[in-house]
């Protein structure tokens, strides 16, 4: 299999395999994916209004990956996220209102307004932080996995990185370290085809990222990241194996990025009609909803009800973020050793 | 041939660790008639500043030690002689003076500086000097250690076998202090005596160590030949918690200096090295919790938990009470608590660390007390 361009449709996205999850789990998965989608779509709108400081990188289109993996984790499992981290946060259970407030730079934010979109973290949920440095999470998650191994608590660590950061030395060094120490780490490569504006086919010397894993002695699995069930199944197997002491692995999720690298990106490097095509044919939420409703497990009404609930949640998050107080000037010098 | 009418004044050796000292100033000019016990010259070691007192009488004929200069222990820093000894003889004495060699290899011959003994109250450090028939045990105060007896232990060693210990939680002894009360500490003192097979001893206690010694005498009168209580706790209700709390709280040189200055009549006695040594002790794991607990139990809010004076009056063993007149930790008025029952002496020009500041006089008093 060669590296897929975003225009290609992965095989098996609408497979007819029986659905392996109970209804409650399916509803929970949908709710998570819908929450991420609405969160990001709303940020797209709000950012354009100019109320949000700095810049944001949206996860819209990639929800199945975060959700399919995180459903296998507990709060004591750790993840290290990326600059495109909102989806990972939500799927890992970080409070949505606090996240929104953080993105608005408010004192009620997850990091009291001191981190922002790229640094949302909640250690109590096992979320070790979004990260502005590409590939930086890989060594950190090795440490998290090492801590779990030292304590023998069966915890696993998941590090997310894109096809761009896949070329960072930190990621490659970490794959080796994880192999050497047999750490319970899953390296999740979120391949959306673009490193910022540069195509994965341009920036990567191998045709298949799994070769990289094999080069470090790691097993690798590649799945269609728009198919929640494919991600969920592959991640479940790899995580269970790692938990049982079976060591690290690479999981490549091939997926699509509905928006640009960051908000305000004109995306002129994309093919004409690419975003429209993806919205129509490769929307993981739509694929999921179609499948669970077609199977008769979840009703359209239930989907519609959940959509309304999530919309209200995001509405509330935005209005509470907007009305939340700014950090006080004292916050400037707290939480760090200050010698002057 | 040395003229016995000529007496050298040499750099003293205060404790076994002292190798040299700095002359900081002469308190008497050349030509002064000196009596035994007169303060002649100030000397500073890296640990502490002190005063050399005359061990002989005579006229101060030469002040050889130059202020600001460091001399090895036993170096000649001055000469006492009768008024009629000719200058030429004194010059010849100075020229011929040789620093006496220590017998054997010095410290090794004198035994190790410190030893350790395991007791039910933990592993305790102690020093042992002298071979006398009588046994003296020196018990330091709150936050102190056996080096608080630096200027006393060797002086007493001529008349007795002298032990100085580090109480639990102090010095280099184990830092666990049990219930952190007086019973634990006096129990530790008795355990120390048991471990070293000391059936009966003259107890000399300073400050909190005085209360420890007193409690031991009350609980085990058969083990205590006499009591000497110096700036002692346990004789009255007041105590300067500013000192004890400050000692517990201070973690830095700047915080510790003003605290330690309260110990002395002359705050200049507190050297940089003394502060650093105290901080080194305070940094050891377990010290902070030991001192915090002891201070809370024994000296809460400007008050001593144990006032033992009335009970001590009912005992029989001889008691000596010594105080520094300007004691800023425990008021010198407490010296009166055993008036009539004890020999009481309040020394002017001395603070809480009277056994260091007026060591000559305190040693004299202790030696007299041991004879009783």
């Amino acid at each position, binding site marked *: 299999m060669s590296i897929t361009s975003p225009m290609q449709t992965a095989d098996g996205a609408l497979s007819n395999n029986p659905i392996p999850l109970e209804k409650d789990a399916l509803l929970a998965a949908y709710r998570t994916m819908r929450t991420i989608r609405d969160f990001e779509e709303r940020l797209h709108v709000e950012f354009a209004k100019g109320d949000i400081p700095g810049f944001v990188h949206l996860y819209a289109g990639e929800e199945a990956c975060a959700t399919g993996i995180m459903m296998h984790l507990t709060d004591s499992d750790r993840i*290290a996220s990326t600059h495109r981290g909102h989806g990972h946060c939500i799927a890992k259970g970080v409070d949505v209102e606090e996240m929104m407030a953080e993105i608005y730079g408010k004192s009620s934010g997850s990091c009291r307004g001191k981190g922002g979109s790229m640094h949302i973290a*909640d250690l109590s949920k096992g979320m070790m*932080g979004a990260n502005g440095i590409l590939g930086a999470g890989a*060594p950190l998650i090795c440490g998290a996995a090492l801590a779990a191994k030292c304590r023998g608590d069966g915890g696993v660590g998941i590090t997310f990185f894109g096809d761009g950061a896949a070329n960072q030395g930190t990621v490659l060094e970490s794959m080796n*370290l994880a192999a050497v120490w047999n750490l319970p780490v899953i390296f999740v490569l979120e391949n959306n085809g673009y490193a910022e504006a540069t195509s994965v086919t341009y920036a990567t010397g191998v045709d298949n990222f799994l070769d990289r894993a094999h080069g470090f002695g790691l097993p690798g699995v590649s799945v269609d990241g728009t198919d929640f069930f494919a991600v969920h199944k592959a991640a479940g197997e790899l995580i269970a194996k790692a938990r049982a002491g079976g060591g690290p692995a690479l999981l490549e999720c091939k997926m699509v990025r509905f928006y640009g690298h960051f908000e305000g990106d004109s995306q002129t490097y994309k093919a004409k009609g690419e975003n429209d095509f993806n919205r129509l044919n490769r929307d993981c939420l739509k694929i999921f909803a179609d499948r669970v409703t077609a199977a008769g497990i979840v009703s359209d009404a239930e989907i519609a009800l959940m959509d309304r609930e999530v919309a209200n949640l995001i509405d509330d998050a935005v209005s509470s973020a907007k009305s939340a107080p700014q950090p006080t000037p004292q916050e400037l010098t707290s939480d760090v050793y200050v*010698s002057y | 041939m040395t003229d016995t009418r000529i007496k050298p004044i040499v750099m003293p050796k205060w404790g076994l660790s002292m190798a040299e000292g700095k002359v900081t100033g002469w308190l008497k000019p050349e030509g002064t008639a000196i009596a035994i016990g007169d303060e002649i010259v100030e000397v500073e070691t890296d640990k502490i500043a002190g005063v050399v007192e005359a061990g002989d009488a005579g006229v101060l004929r030469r002040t050889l030690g130059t202020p600001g200069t460091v001399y090895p222990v036993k170096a000649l820093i001055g000469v006492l002689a009768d008024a009629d000894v000719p200058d030429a003889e004194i010059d010849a004495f100075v020229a011929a003076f040789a620093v006496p060699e220590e017998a054997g290899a010095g410290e090794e011959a004198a035994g190790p500086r410190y030893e350790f003994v395991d007791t039910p109250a933990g592993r305790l450090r102690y020093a042992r000097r002298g071979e006398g028939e009588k046994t003296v045990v020196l018990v330091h105060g709150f936050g102190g250690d056996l080096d608080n007896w630096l200027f006393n232990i060797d002086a007493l060693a001529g008349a007795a076998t002298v032990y100085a210990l580090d109480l639990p939680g102090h010095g280099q002894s184990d830092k666990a202090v049990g219930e952190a009360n007086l019973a634990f500490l006096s129990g530790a003192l008795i355990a120390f005596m048991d471990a070293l097979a000391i059936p009966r001893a003259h107890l000399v206690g300073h400050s909190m160590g005085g209360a420890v010694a007193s409690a031991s005498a009350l609980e085990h009168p058969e083990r205590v030949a006499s009591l000497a209580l110096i700036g002692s706790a346990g004789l009255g209700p007041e105590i300067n918690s500013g000192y004890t709390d400050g000692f517990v709280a201070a973690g830095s*040189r700047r915080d510790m200096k003003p605290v330690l200055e309260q110990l002395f009549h002359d705050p200049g006695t507190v050297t940089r090295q003394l502060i650093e040594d105290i901080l080194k002790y305070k940094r050891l*794991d377990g010290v902070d919790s030991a001192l915090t607990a002891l201070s809370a139990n024994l000296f809460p809010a400007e008050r001593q938990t144990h006032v033992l004076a009335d009970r001590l009056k009912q005992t029989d063993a001889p008691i000596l009470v010594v105080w520094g007149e300007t004691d800023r930790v425990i008021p010198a008025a407490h010296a009166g608590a055993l008036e009539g029952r004890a020999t009481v002496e309040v020394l002017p020009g001395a603070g809480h660390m009277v056994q260091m500041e007026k060591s000559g006089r305190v040693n004299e008093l202790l030696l007299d007390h041991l004879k009783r």
Partner: protein
Amino acid sequence: MSRTLSFKLAINEALDLEMRRDPSVILLGEDIVGGSGSPGEMDAWGGVLGVTKGLYGKHGNRLMDTPLSESAYIGAAIGAAACGMRPVAELMFLDFMGVCFDQILNQAAKFRYMFGGKAKTPVVIRAMVGAGFRAAAQHSQMLTPMFTHVPGLKVVCPSNAYDAKGLLIQSIRDDDPVIFCEHKNLYASEADVPAEPYAIPFGEANVVRDGRDVTIVSYGLTVHRALEAAQTLSKRSGIEAEVIDLRTLSPIDWDTVIESVENTGRLVVVDEANPRCSIATDVAAYVAQQAFGALKAAPQMVTAPHTPVPFSPALEDLYIPSADAIAAAVLKTHPQALAA
């Protein structure tokens, strides 16, 4: 119980005692055990200079040899610290920061602040610093100012065995990342070191010599050069120098420096680092700003030249600030002594 111990053994003892006290303390580094996977004996090296020798026998797998992969294992140490461990990572030579600096600069140093005070990173990075070992340009630098520039890091550089043990124990117990700089030419130096564990608080400079005429501020190896200069000055010129050993560079004990300069009216700062933006410039600037009125002469700085560390012993000996250079700088603050 106190006895004479070398700087190297003092560090070894600190690590041993803290590993005994706290099971979350683990040691990572290149050849800190030595011989892992090799046909010969384990604990072959105990670090390149034998600092951790013997600890493997006492603590086994809590010491981990790492691949030669600084980004990965320094990052893993930081990640493990964020997950409740207290790792001590050995970076061998601080010069190697170049290949792992992101993990220190952007990860460890930032977590606590960036995550709004909700994360702590109790990692210690031990590394050798300093010239005089004939190790040339890439193994000899005094890079302390690079780290003091970064908020969130604590920077320690002991000058003697007693301080090395107490400061390392404090470093391990501290909740912030600590860069612990060990001058390789001090390893053999000896001091009285209590056998018990003890911690020296950060930000507490040590006044190692009293003096009324000039304040010499230094840290690490050059403290000894400063003392040498002070003794020479006392004998030859009657100038009594107060010598301050900073011990920790972040936090730094400004109070002790200012208090001393207010007494002496003169300042000489001795720093083995290169001169620009160094500890020397930092101290000189701060004193000029805070105690200008007390100064009777211009502050002097004695530093390495602004060159890489040369290899040839003939050149390297000129590189480290010498006692003569320090004495000369002191005399510059005493023009009347120069004239005489």
